[in-house]
């Protein structure tokens, strides 16, 4: 199964990289950009066919390593 884990900064956590990207987009003249927050995406290939077991594994992966829950939220999506 293919899975995607998305890790984003919690609301209120200062994101200097997102701010720098935001100002670069504005200076490039990209219309309508109001704010940018930078996150991370992990595309993970996971064995077996039990979706709930896969989801449990991926949540464990997030809690143990992929996200630092002091500052980050995570979301797990399992595809076909």
């Amino acid at each position, binding site marked *: 199964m293919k899975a995607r884990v998305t890790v984003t900064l919690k609301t209120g956590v200062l994101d200097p990289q997102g701010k*720098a990207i935001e100002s670069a987009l504005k200076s490039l003249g990209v219309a309508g950009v109001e704010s940018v927050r930078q996150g991370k995406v992990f595309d993970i290939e996971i064995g077996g066919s039990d979706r709930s077991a896969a989801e449990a594994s991926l949540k464990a992966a997030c809690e143990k390593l992929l996200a630092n829950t002091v500052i980050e939220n995570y979301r797990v999506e399992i595809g076909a």
Partner: protein
Amino acid sequence: MLKAAVVTFPGSNREGDVARALRQAGATVVSVWHADTALPAGTHLVVLPGGFSYGDYLRTGAIAGRANIMDATRAHAARGGLVLGICNGFQIACEAGLLPGILMRNAGLKFVCRRQHLTVERADTPYARAYAKGQVLDVCIAHGEGNYVADVETLARLEGEGLVAFRYCEADGQVTAAANPNGSLNNIAGIYSPGLNVLGLMPHPENLIDSLTGGTDGLGMFESLMGRAA
């Protein structure tokens, strides 16, 4: 005799400097590899040195914080053993759960490498007894992710329990926004665990141990660890 275990992770680069500082103060130093599962018998102090472990991949200190040796290091800390994390070692200690909070990208987005003044917030600890409370130290900083962040409750607990070890300050000891090199909350440069046995700090005391190379204000930390008081 203090026995120190200095851990090398893939990408550590300050392990030699901190070992030299410890030896100069009179400690016995043993090198430990990150994949080892046990500390040498009789270890008093575990040092997590500076560097760029795992190329700072994922988050600074994140992968090193899950290395085999960190299980033994957590057990050592839980027994009251000393653990010192410097720069990347502070980041590793936070990621390993030895200290609260996290070090984020510097607010100014630049890697900052320069001399920096610090205040000694308390001197009644194994790491600072050779200093005086309120003393201003002239040390070095070199980091891109030194911006200390913790949630409101954690920050209140650190301040309320007196667990802030050092703060960035002006040469005269004033703690100001202008003296903050990276945006850290409350100008925090280093923090202790509640038992005062774990210390994490961004500055490099091991750089300042010889007047030939810039100063000796870092020496006090290693003298302190040897049990010498001010």
